[in-house]
């Protein structure tokens, strides 16, 4: 509690470029308690060698979710201490813009960090490192959260650990489900990749050639003014349950890659037709539900196909689904059916871990931290493009 308040108190020595973050912080500048900042770095370094427990704080904000979480590792166990999320929801018919989303993250960061610490019952002195999403994602939101993370790191005198968002998803998925070496289907609003681990890297076997699958769903929802609360994909899923007719949409798989932009264009054209003519036999001849159903059936069939091809290629029978679209129960069901036929199984999670969250950043960051990885302050810049296979995975055999 007191320590976060101190974050605001020390915000002045930050470079001028970080000033946007301090707008939210300045709301609580009065408390001057700085108990935690007094722990000398030498003591922390000495403690490293004989440690049997590590705690990391993770900050995620690559898209419209701001997530902060704390995790504890011991040599044998992993404990989630807190996992909080605050989502920026834009009105129906619109998407979230970088500027507004960044403002949201800046506004909510301090309050969320306070709550995360309080819920975890952890003092800043107990935290070993501050992990943050370094990319990929939207530039402005990433930067806002990185500033928050840098502030905490400077304030508490703790090292920073930059984390690849995709690797965060994968590591959290493996931890939560216990999947050992699965083929990973990572599907979200910004990414669609089929990944498998080989020789210290998460290698991308297949991915979208244009837009991400979640982006396709989000933009389709916008045309029909489907609500963004709690998520457009969730609302499409509910509508699709009532659909019965399969409309012809393009089906684009190229090897282990696929493409969604043509499908989106077709679905948008059908949606425009529907809006103009109305449903029913005299109108367009199909309903909003039919269209949602057809879109889901087509794009998920594509995802299952590229996943199956990757599984056949690497000879694995386990699949792990991560990312926001991974919450979709129809997708989970389709993948499960495919995996079962191949004599394997699927590992899926619920929204707490599928949708972007801080805990996955803390977890992946802490794994790297324990192998000695640090991100010096001057290298803690964010990048909108950060390939999954750029990360050297030192913590796996």
């Amino acid at each position, binding site marked *: 509690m007191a320590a976060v308040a101190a974050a605001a108190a020390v915000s002045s020595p930050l470079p001028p470029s970080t000033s946007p973050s301090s707008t939210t912080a300045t709301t609580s500048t009065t408390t001057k308690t700085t108990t935690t900042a007094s722990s000398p770095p030498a003591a922390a370094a000495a403690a490293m060698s004989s440690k049997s427990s590590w705690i990391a704080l993770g900050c995620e904000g690559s898209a419209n979710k701001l997530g902060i979480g704390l995790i504890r590792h011991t040599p044998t166990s992993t404990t989630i201490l807190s996992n909080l999320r605050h989502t920026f929801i834009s009105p129906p018919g619109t998407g979230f813009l970088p500027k507004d989303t960044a403002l949201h993250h800046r506004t909510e960061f301090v309050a969320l960090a306070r709550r995360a610490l309080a819920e975890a019952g952890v003092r800043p002195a107990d935290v070993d490192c501050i992990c943050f999403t370094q990319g990929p994602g939207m530039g402005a939101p990433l930067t806002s959260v990185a500033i928050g993370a840098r502030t905490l790191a400077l304030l508490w005198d703790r090292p920073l650990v930059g984390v690849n968002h995709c690797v965060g998803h994968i590591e959290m998925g493996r931890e939560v489900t216990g999947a050992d070496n699965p083929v990973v289907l990572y599907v979200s609003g910004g990414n669609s990749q089929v990944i498998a681990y*080989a020789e210290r890297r998460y290698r991308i076997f297949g991915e979208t050639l244009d837009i991400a699958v979640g982006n396709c769903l989000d933009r389709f929802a916008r045309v029909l003014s489907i609500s963004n609360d709690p998520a457009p994909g969730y609302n499409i899923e509910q509508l699709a349950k009532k659909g019965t007719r399969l409309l012809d949409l393009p089906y684009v798989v190229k090897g282990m890659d696929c493409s969604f932009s043509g499908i989106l264009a077709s679905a948008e054209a059908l949606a425009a037709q529907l809006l103009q003519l109305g449903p029913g036999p005299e109108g367009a001849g199909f309903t909003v539900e039919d269209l949602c159903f057809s879109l889901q059936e087509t794009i998920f069939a594509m995802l299952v196909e590229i996943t199956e091809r990757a599984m056949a290629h690497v000879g694995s029978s386990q699949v792990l689904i991560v990312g926001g679209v991974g919450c979709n129960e129809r997708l989970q069901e389709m993948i499960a059916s495919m995996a079962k036929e*191949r004599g394997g199984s699927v590992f899926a999670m619920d929204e707490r871990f599928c949708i972007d969250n801080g805990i996955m950043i803390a977890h992946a960051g802490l794994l790297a931290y324990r192998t000695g990885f640090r991100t010096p302050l001057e290298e803690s810049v964010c990048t909108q493009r950060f390939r999954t296979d750029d990360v050297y995975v030192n913590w796996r055999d």
Partner: protein
Amino acid sequence: MTATAAEAAAPHDFPLPKILTNPASTPPTLITQGAEGRLYKTTYLLPDIPCALKYRPPKPWRHPVLDQRLTKHRILSEARILSKCRRDGLRVPDVYALDEAAGWLMLEWVQGTPVRVNINQRLGSRTEGIEDDEELKDLMRRIGAAVGKMHSIGVIHGDLTTSNMMLKPPAQQQQTTDGATGLEGEIVIIDLGLASGGVHDEDRAVDLYVLERAFGSTHPRAECIFGEVLDAYRQSYKQAGVTLKKLEDVRMRGRKRSMLG
């Protein structure tokens, strides 16, 4: 063509396609469960003519209408492309028979192993000297020539990987060394289920890019000699240079590009 050993150890009880339940047909062996379907080994016409039966079973997770549409389209298109390749002199399996509604395609049986197996056995656990392995580089050049030939006759594979190429050992070697995997032999491109006709440099370049990336993720240590594939490709037909130029664009495109920092 993957995990053959594992599949054999734990066979699944898949229902056979109807064609294989005829009393006249040789008892089939399930060779592999690929991504697309199952591959059986049986015989065609005479008991001593082995053949491969590619069966695309209905995929219960797919909407039945979509499933039928895709299966039919892929069987027919694969058969057409294979015939075209044979006509134009590219070594691929011959088409013996097909039934697109029932979802099967009967093909010539190609002796040998997928190139992936040969490369991996050759690499073993080696980390050094790979870039000087002349025999391996020669194999790379044969791959490049085969892909070039395929592109020169206007065929785009759509799923080029080292699993989708067979290395058919020379005839005299077949009797002596069973199971041994040398690097000699003829490249036979297989699994043209995603192939299409096309003479655009863009499509050819994407085809090469798919191979390049699949190669990198399957044989990370041999990535250093992938250049041999492209070298041989360059010499295999007239417009190859233009395609390779385009490949550079494809590599740099959009989300494939890395922009660290």
